[in-house]
């Protein structure tokens, strides 16, 4: 097809040959039309393809004539230039310049309703205005453009404007050019007080302190604006405010989401986001670390925490769910979220079929899913706070020592390795001596509480003696669910360390099995049991109240049926799950715990016999037990391996040194080092001390969820037919959507490569989508209103060149977030007054042309923080575990499962009632009530755009929520303290705190009259005054008189409900 450029001059069409321009007619050949024909029919107002034509075609035609071949009708495509120019039996879909000869035009006007498009069944009716767009588009040459968002953004030259004086930076040139074209003029610049408040709210999420407002107003220096902006962005509040928006996108919350909806420990990720913004981390790095921080070479603890972005998704542990289905849902969520947040694309629409509107095939969706389907994460979250993979996040104070711990441990291991490799000189003589003939225990006879000798136990009816792992070994074989009971085996207890080791034959069935136990089902299961559930080994310890801690091997460490396995579980006596370890066949298992918040109470010792192969209800039918030992201390990993080499140690006892085979020799060396060799034992002791230190830090620190790749296979996924988990079709490798620039050869085909691709300069979407979302934070609406959808069905940008200019500028600045914000808030566009004239309201009700400043109702979090800050209540503390401020009773209970640990809302006390709202505990099935009423999302899915409704329920929150009533009272108190006896000044103080400006005379009059009426009421009803002042946890200032304080509290409550206070 030849390349042509269409230029419209004075209504006539002139075709000019061009080499590589973006706009091209659909016609295969330039069509020369007689001037006479067009002269009589002026082409009318020029159409804007991206804003008018593409949305029309996409919304009305693409569903049947778009990218999806499965549903394409009549083989006709209207989403490509080629499709529009393809000759059909009846003619061309589009004949440039001639609507009557265009099939599209004919069919949308067809007299026969059966042939008219869109078809009746679609229930779509075209308006005259829509038809007019089509007519003009064809008349004007049927210019075609690719979807704007898929083209690389370029900096266009700044457009010329008339009112150059108004312009402060590049943004204003683009904005003003459109305004002038539409015959609108900018609003005047806001006064300094308004700007002081607007800037503080936009950059920190909090109202400015009155003193800061005054300083800003009175600052005579030239750079007063810059310095104010810089100071706000340097505050820790900046990061908190930016993070709050991001947490909606990341669907961050404090519970799992589905069913039991238990607590999930994840807040270190939230704190990472805050720190990243506060440190002005380049957005590219911010992206890479969240998508693939765990895969970075020499990853840091922080980078691993960042990878928690994709562990924020909703998970389930509902009994009965089908694992394959859940895993498909998790992968879909991760693709959808990545698509929405970074690409601004509704990739998820291609889950069941090719995308109906955008060129995203179903294969593209599953290729994206492949990046996320190679995880070690179990589909079931276990209802525990720390579903693996997780990492320990030490407290800030412990962090330096924490990283040195690892080095110290490595050093000790290295010295042990060296000594082991060299073999101490004394070892040879020990081998030759008689000492080793007396080895009674694999590790340390003194620590051994019990050791099983299969040959010596009295066999029960359903057991028999047979061969063990090595043919000569004896083992007890179990045939039923009953086992062997051994009374008089010393008991272990919860407050002391112990270890249990076993060498056992895994049965071939799929039941729950018990290897050994000292417990009794009748006594709430008190005691310990080593069991196999879902083919993974676990040790469970249960105390007086029936609550258990347990350690269980991860789902990827399933034991093979019919194999012998050696297992060691250790417990350090700290009564908590993190004090347990598990080694399976010589390797530390990737384990998952039970509830790590449980602390065992009382004793676990109930005088039960040791039971081999059962726990009085379940057994080890079809399995066998060759060794079982109980130690009264924890074993090191090496000792645990040594325990598994008992067979070799035993076999070597009677052999002369030269006759020993390699494995016997190795077992003996290990035994010698661990029991005889003083330097080695010193190192073992050192490691034990380091381990204790680590555990103490673990207890002081937190857990956070991270991503972790499976190492045993490469990322892949199956295309799921119609999105159904049980209908896998073609296998696909990880890849990015084919409509976008491909990954380069240097990008690995895993999440790290995906992350690198996202921030690659060739990617046309990420920078645009990101600057658009930041723009939305300031202006209330993005340049692309549908900030989640830059595709065909999204809205076209109001200022496409500005969006592109900002996107390129942002990327070229090194993705500098603070710089971008400074640019935006410094613009004259931003500084405009929000005042709306009749003309602007009529011609541009949505303020698409930005001919006035932003004004919109703040989010619920900001409204609450505003009240707390104005009242001087807001806690300055940054980060830490989530908190539970005031909330009406029963909100959680109404929806929770009986066994959920988030069933009852236990309100916090003190400082925790007054933390910034982004620290409020977020239960997904019942989000913070007051926030939800103000349109907060549930955080079940990624959300990049909040709604802003205006409802009576919101009025009830800010009038009646104890949080607001207490804040109103505190504000009244401080106003009275500041100006005792001077009511005028008291009212003025409240106004300044809440409005950042003095009251106008009329307003003062209204306020004063209301105050007097309140005063009158409380004077006559002093009990009411007392009750009102009692709201909240903070006691009232007893020195202040009740009646005026109550009246001023009501006035303060009134001010807090002003539209001006609720709006930014």
């Amino acid at each position: 097809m030849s390349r042509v450029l269409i230029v419209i001059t004075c209504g006539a069409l002139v075709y000019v040959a061009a080499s590589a321009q973006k706009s091209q007619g659909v016609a295969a050949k330039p069509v020369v039309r007689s001037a006479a024909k067009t002269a009589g029919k002026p082409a009318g107002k020029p159409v804007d393809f991206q804003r008018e034509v593409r949305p029309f075609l996409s919304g009305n035609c693409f569903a049947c004539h778009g990218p999806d071949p499965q549903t394409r009708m009549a083989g006709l495509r209207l989403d490509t230039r080629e499709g529009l120019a393809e000759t059909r039996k009846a003619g061309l879909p589009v004949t440039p310049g001639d609507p009557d000869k265009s099939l599209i035009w004919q069919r949308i006007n067809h007299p026969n309703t059966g042939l008219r498009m869109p078809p009746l069944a679609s229930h779509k009716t075209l308006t005259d205005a829509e038809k007019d767009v089509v007519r003009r588009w064809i008349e004007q040459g049927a210019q075609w453009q690719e979807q704007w968002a898929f083209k690389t953004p370029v900096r266009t030259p700044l457009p010329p404007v008339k009112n150059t004086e108004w312009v402060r930076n590049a943004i204003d040139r683009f904005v003003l050019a459109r305004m002038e074209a539409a015959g609108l003029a900018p609003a005047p610049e806001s006064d300094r007080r308004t700007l002081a408040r607007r800037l503080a709210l936009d950059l920190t999420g909090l109202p400015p302190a009155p003193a800061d407002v005054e300083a800003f107003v009175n600052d005579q220096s030239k750079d007063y604006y810059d310095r104010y902006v810089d100071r706000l962005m340097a505050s820790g509040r900046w990061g908190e405010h930016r993070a709050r928006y991001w947490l909606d996108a990341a669907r961050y919350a404090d519970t799992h989401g589905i069913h039991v909806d238990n607590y999930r420990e994840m807040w270190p990720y939230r704190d990472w986001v805050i720190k990243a913004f506060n440190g002005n981390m380049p957005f590219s790095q911010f992206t890479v670390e969240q998508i693939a921080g765990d895969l970075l070479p020499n990853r840091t603890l922080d980078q691993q925490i960042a990878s928690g972005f994709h562990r924020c998704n909703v998970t389930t542990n509902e009994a009965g769910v089908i694992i394959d289905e859940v895993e498909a849902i998790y992968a879909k969520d991760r693709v959808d979220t990545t698509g929405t947040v970074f690409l601004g694309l509704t990739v998820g629409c291609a889950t069941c079929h090719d995308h109906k509107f955008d060129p995203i095939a179903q294969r593209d969706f599953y290729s994206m899913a492949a990046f996320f389907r190679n995880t070690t994460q179990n589909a079931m979250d276990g209802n525990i706070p720390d579903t693996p993979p997780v990492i320990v996040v030490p407290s800030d104070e412990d962090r330096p020592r924490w990283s040195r711990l690892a080095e110290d441990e490595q050093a000790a291991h290295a010295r042990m390795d060296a000594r082991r490799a060299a073999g101490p000189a004394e070892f040879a003589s020990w081998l030759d001596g008689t000492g080793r003939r007396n080895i009674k225990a694999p590790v340390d006879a003194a620590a051994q509480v019990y050791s099983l000798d299969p040959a010596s136990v009295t066999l029960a009816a359903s057991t028999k003696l047979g061969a063990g792992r090595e043919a000569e070994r004896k083992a007890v074989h179990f045939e039923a669910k009953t086992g062997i009971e051994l009374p008089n085996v010393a008991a272990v207890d919860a407050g002391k360390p112990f270890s249990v080791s076993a060498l056992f034959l895994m049965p071939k069935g799929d039941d729950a099995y018990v290897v050994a136990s000292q417990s009794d089902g009748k006594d709430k299961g008190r005691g310990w049991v080593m069991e196999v559930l879902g083919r993974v080994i676990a040790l469970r310890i249960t105390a007086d109240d029936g609550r258990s801690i347990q350690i269980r091997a991860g789902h990827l460490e399933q034991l093979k049926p019919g194999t012998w396995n050696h297992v060691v579980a250790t417990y350090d006596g700290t009564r908590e799950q993190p004090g347990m370890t598990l080694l399976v066949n010589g390797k530390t298992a990737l384990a998952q715990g039970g509830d790590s918040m449980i602390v065992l109470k009382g004793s676990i010792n109930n005088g039960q016999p040791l039971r081999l192969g059962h726990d009085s209800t379940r057994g080890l039918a079809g399995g066998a037990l060759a060794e079982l030992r109980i130690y009264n201390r924890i074993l090191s990993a090496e000792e645990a391996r040594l325990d598994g080499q008992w067979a070799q140690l035993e076999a070597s006892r009677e052999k002369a040194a030269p006759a020993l085979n390699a494995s016997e020799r190795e077992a003996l060396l290990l035994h010698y080092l661990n029991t005889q060799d003083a330097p080695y034992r010193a190192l073992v002791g050192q490691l034990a001390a380091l381990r204790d230190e680590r555990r103490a830090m673990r207890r002081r620190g937190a857990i956070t969820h991270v991503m972790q790749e499976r190492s045993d296979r490469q990322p892949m996924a199956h295309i799921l037919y119609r999105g159904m988990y049980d209908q896998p079709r073609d296998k696909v490798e990880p890849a990015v959507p084919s409509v976008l620039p491909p990954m380069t050869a240097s990008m690995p085909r895993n999440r790290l490569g995906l992350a690198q691709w996202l921030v690659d300069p060739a990617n046309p979407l990420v920078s645009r989508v990101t600057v658009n979302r930041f723009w939305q934070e300031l202006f209330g609406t993005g340049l692309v209103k549908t900030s989640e959808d830059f595709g065909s069905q999204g809205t076209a940008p109001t200022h496409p060149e500005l969006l592109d200019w900002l996107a390129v500028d942002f990327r070229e600045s090194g993705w500098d977030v603070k710089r971008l914000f400074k640019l935006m808030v410094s613009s004259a566009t931003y500084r405009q007054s929000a005042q709306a004239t009749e003309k602007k309201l009529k011609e541009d009700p949505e303020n698409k042309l930005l001919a006035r400043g932003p004004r919109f109702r703040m989010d619920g979090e900001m409204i609450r923080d505003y009240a707390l800050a104005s009242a001087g209540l807001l806690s300055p503390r940054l980060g830490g575990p989530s908190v539970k401020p005031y909330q009406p009773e029963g909100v959680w209970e109404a929806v929770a499962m009986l066994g959920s640990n988030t069933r009852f809302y236990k309100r916090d006390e003190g400082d925790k009632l007054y933390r910034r709202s982004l620290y409020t505990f977020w239960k997904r099935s019942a989000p913070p009530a007051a926030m939800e009423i103000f349109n907060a999302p549930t955080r079940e899915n990624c959300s990049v755009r909040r709604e802003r409704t205006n409802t009576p329920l919101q009025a009830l929150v800010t009038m009646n929520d104890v949080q607001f009533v207490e804040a109103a009272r505190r504000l009244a108190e401080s106003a009275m303290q500041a100006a005792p006896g001077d009511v005028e000044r008291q009212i003025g103080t409240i106004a300044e705190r809440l409005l950042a400006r003095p009251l106008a005379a009329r307003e003062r009059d209204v306020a004063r009259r209301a105050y007097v009426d309140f005063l009158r009421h409380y004077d006559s009803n002093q009990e009411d005054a007392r009750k009102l002042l009692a709201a909240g946890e903070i006691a009232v200032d007893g020195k202040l008189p009740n009646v005026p304080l109550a009246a001023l509290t009501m006035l303060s409550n009134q001010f807090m409900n002003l539209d001006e206070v609720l709006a930014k």
Partner: protein
Amino acid sequence: MNNENSGLHGDEITPAARRLARHLPQRLIEETVAAETRRQFFGRSARGLGGLALASLMGEAAATRGEAIGGQPGLPHHAPKAKRCIYLHLVGAPPQIDLFDPKPGMKDWFDKDLPDSIRRGQRLTTMTSGQSRFPIAPSVFQFKQHGKSGMALSELLPYTGRMADDIALIRTMNTEAINHEPAITFMQTGSMIAGRPCIGSWTSYGLGSMNQDLPSFVVLHASHSHPRANVQAISARLWSAGFLSAQYAGVALRSSGDSVLYLNNPDGVPSPVRRRMLDALGEMNQIQHQQTGDPETLARIAQYEMAFRMQTSVPELTDLSKEPASTYSLYGEEAKKPGTFANTCLMARRLAERGVRFIQVYQRGWDVHGQLPEVLPSQCKDVDQAVFGLVQDLKSRGMFDDTLVIFGGEFGRTIYSQGKLTATDYGRDHHPRCFSLWLAGGGIKGATVHGETDEFSYNIVSDPVHVRDLQATLLHLFGVHHEKFTYRFQGLDQRLTGVEPARVVRNILA
């Protein structure tokens, strides 16, 4: 509160104000007194303006004429049969075999295995997929025929039996979901994955509100009596507006604490004080509006007024003291206890009377995986008389003909026992292939039994009704064509019934 003392309404402001001298500087008192005349004007005009704004925003006039406020142009598509709906959802899934779908032939199959020819490799939940056999558990409950149609119902539902001629029983409901969370979400939103609007939100959005003092879509949670009933989680997502504006989300009416969250004024703020505060707030907002010209400010004034009206209308709604004794003989004495299912049914009627369009009731405790013969009678006792009472009450008030009542769960339960089966004890697992649900009232043909299942109540033999069909039928009764009723989101014309085919169940229509 004593108005004479409050001084908020009286004209004798001056003497009262003088008493305040001990709190106020003289100048302020004088200015205040001087402002009295102006105040009359401002006070009235502020209320007048606020009222005007409200009238235009809330369609006060329309409401007075009994028309809907809000709603979408072009709706309804045809004359509606139902103006409102009371949807009683029994969370956990009641066992159809023990309540609605008798299979007497199963007595001979006790403890025999479910034939593979019946199960046909259906996917099972992981709760029973590990079972080595699937022994058939016939219901221990007797069935009796009722009414003109001879509708067979369980002995556990005697009251329901008495109104058999009012209800249409569907025995062939079916779904694809096999677990509660996705299944309830499917019933409510047309999708198993959370995030889409629920039925109540769709109807509020499309058809608007029929009153100006209460939300259009209200959610009620009913308690259950049996302490060992197996309870499933529900969550706020079930009454969320999804991608529709949040103003269409359900408002949960609570049985303890504030009946609507944050409804009550703080202690020490009686209604006249709130009224005075709102007047002053309105005045200041008016001043602000003159500055900025932002229409949102007027909308906010209107919403504060609506909030104030709710502060009166909701307590009036929940105050049952004026209900006559006959109410309780109808619904049962339990209806006096806040939060019981009977109480909730009574509340649903009161909401319906006041023009609430969609009333969604949830009762939990129906997830009978075990101990079914022990738990089920108690669950049925909770609901049977109450729902009968509701239907009779609607009838006597002339509301039955335009109120749709729906009663059912999210899927069915298996004919085979989960866990141990004895002659007197068994449990049932989840079963998506068939379940029962009944409808009554607006536009429904009573004395109807629709659809037939096989002898195991396992597969559908004739006239299946998919979840989407039920939703299409519900919308149809509201005068809405489910394919024409769409909302543009993520570039798609979204609808409640989704993209798969759905059809109206004509057979149950009057």
